[in-house]
């Protein structure tokens, strides 16, 4: 009898360990449950001039937050520290800046923003002074390019989504051509690019609701996900966090979809609406080291800040 009990105990122990192991494996492949908690929204500058349809938002990973106030043709620099906004908000305007959309900050604090009217990447100092355009040097044929989006990696290299010549251009921090990765066959339309902590380049195809990836030094893109149409209507923007999770902005659906590093669906957060915490035609998303998420909530004319918790 005692032997039988011992045997049963062993079996149940083994089953429990298998279950725990299985759940750990599942968690590590698809990521733990991720939720957003609404923190606050940015509605205006320090003179109370309201934001107008902002489409860009960038963080230096610490406390600096840059907003492309697209409808007002300007950039705004906020300091967001410990969950609060500091009083001083700096307005950045330039005669060479008409319609800023996607915006990025490099490790030296320099500002790069895609001007949709000019379809050029404008280069500004950390103080907001115009420093010219990002003109790739030494491009192989074809030399012509149209940047639909861009991103900067941790080493300040540029990755430009060139929709004219169907490729991703890789430039060194000085803007010199380093390499290119051709777009994959049969894509719909690429609208944004991101580079994760491992240097993997990610592209989002809004038309087919797919994410493509190219590992570091890889010469080609391959699909990372299957069609995500059951979760998103029209994904148009993406970013990654320091764990490699992918945050996908559903422009038409007003939500953020989180994928694991392996492209597996993890969670969908927020939803279409006007109230705080809801999104209407969101554009760029960025995330800092503290897990604070900033979303340019374009048609609600504000930037919303969320905190990730697991």
């Amino acid at each position, binding site marked *: 009898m005692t032997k039988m009990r011992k045997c049963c105990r062993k079996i149940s122990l083994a089953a429990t360990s298998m279950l725990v192991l299985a759940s750990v494996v599942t968690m590590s492949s698809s990521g733990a449950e991720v939720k957003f908690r609404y923190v606050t929204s940015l*509605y*205006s500058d320090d003179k109370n001039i*309201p*934001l*107008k*349809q902002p489409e860009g938002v960038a963080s230096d990973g610490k406390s600096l937050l840059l907003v492309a106030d697209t*409808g007002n043709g300007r950039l705004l620099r906020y300091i967001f520290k410990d969950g609060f906004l500091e009083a001083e908000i700096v307005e950045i305007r330039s005669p060479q800046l*008409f*319609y800023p959309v996607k915006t990025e900050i490099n490790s030296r604090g320099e500002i790069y923003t895609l001007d*949709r*009217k000019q*379809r050029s990447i404008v280069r500004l100092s950390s103080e907001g002074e115009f420093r010219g355009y990002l003109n790739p040097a030494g491009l192989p044929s074809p030399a012509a390019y*149209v940047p*639909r989006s861009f991103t900067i990696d941790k080493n300040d290299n540029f990755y430009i989504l060139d*929709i*004219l*010549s*169907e490729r991703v251009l890789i430039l060194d921090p000085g803007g010199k051509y380093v390499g290119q990765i051709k777009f994959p066959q049969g894509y*719909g*339309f690429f*609208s944004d690019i991101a580079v994760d902590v491992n240097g993997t380049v990610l592209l989002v195809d*809004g*038309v087919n609701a797919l994410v493509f990836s190219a590992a570091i030094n890889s010469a080609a893109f391959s699909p990372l996900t299957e069609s995500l*149409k059951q979760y998103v*209507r*029209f994904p148009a923007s993406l970013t990654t966090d320091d764990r490699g999770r992918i945050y996908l902005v559903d422009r*038409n*659906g007003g939500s953020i979809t989180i994928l694991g590093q392996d492209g597996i669906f993890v969670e969908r957060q927020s939803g*279409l*609406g*006007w*109230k*705080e915490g809801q999104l209407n*035609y969101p554009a760029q998303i960025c995330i800092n080291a503290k897990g604070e998420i900033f979303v340019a909530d*374009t*048609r*609600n*004319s*504000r930037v919303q800040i969320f905190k990730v918790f697991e």
Partner: protein
Amino acid sequence: MKSLDFNFKYATLFTVYVVFSLVVVKPAYPEGKFKLRPGAKGKICLKCHETFKQTLKSRYVHPLLKKGKCTGCHVPHTSSHKNLLTADTTKLCYECHKKVLPEKARSAHKVVVEANCNKCHNSHGSNNKFILIKSGNELCFDCHKDISDNIKNVRFKHKSLEKDKGCLNCHNPHASAKSNSLLRNSMPSLCIKCHKTNKSTFRQQHMNYPVAKSDCSSCHNPHGSNKRGMVFDVAHSDVARRKCTTCHQIAPSLKTKQPPSQLCRECHKTMANQTFTKKRVHWPVVDSVSCLHCHGPHATKEQKLLKDPQLQVCGECHADTVELQEASKKNPNNDKLCEPVKTGNCTSCHSPHAADNVLLVNEASISFDICARCHQWETHSTHPIGEKFIDIRDKNLSVTCLSCHRACGTGNNPAMLTFSSTYELCIQCHVERRR
């Protein structure tokens, strides 16, 4: 031992009798599994269903009926399917006619996919080949009225429509494993079967360009048109004037002089200038495919050389929005659906090339500049609306038409509301009214 011999003899005789009676003598049982009286098979049904006597006299009769096997498709007593059929109509015909829909069909006739075989065939018999309910093109044109009307009215008709098998000269009636639109073969292989590309007249007509491997339907309407050579009615002016070299290099090279993003701008300067001075250019306009995402370069059926009807063109990328629009159209609560949404006229509100506004809407204010073109919003409701009235959900927004409605359609919601009922909508702001 004697007794054993006796038994053996009788056993042999008995076996022979049994075998003989089973094999040679006809059993006295009734006919078939339904135990019909002898001679009743193939006749008994017709005793009541007299009209089929006439059907049996048709030139073409379904082989089962011809053999009097009504029970091939019908159960005589009870059935769970209409007309006492042995199976559901969506499965019954496929039980024998499996090859009608190939597994890897590139295109299939909708009625075949939906197994509505009776739309074309009389399941019992008819005077038309393949027991079709009508003969020749007449049958196809019953549904494809647009093509029939087009053919009736055009000056130049495709001759193959009027000879031999008519529509079936080019199309398979059920499915095609080789091409879209049920074509018997892909283009140009289908066309060059009759139109010999090595003839001097052919080469002359095509300005000596090697078009033998090109898609003929990029210029020609395969059914007919009002333009000589059956070129689509809406033709690029240079195609109509046969000035191919405006865009293409000199024959025999088919290459264009520049990529599409540059080439079209050479002539369409006004459009280009208007487009590129706007704040937001529709991104596909400036990519590698450029104008050809939406327009045909040579000739098309649609105005402004759109390659397909507008909704279809927009839906190629914006399928999610078109899905909402279609659902809104089907929604019985949407009897007063916005006209551009109903007709799929996206460009009524959006500028397809470029605009200064988000969503590429062609006016700064959707409510007052676009909706008000048709809806006199001042009289629409007593709800305050306009710049003075701040949306309490978001202090940067004022109350506009889009505070309550969604302009491209909202699927199953009534009156293009963003919420499923008026109550749900109103309590978004009027929270004190929540029940």
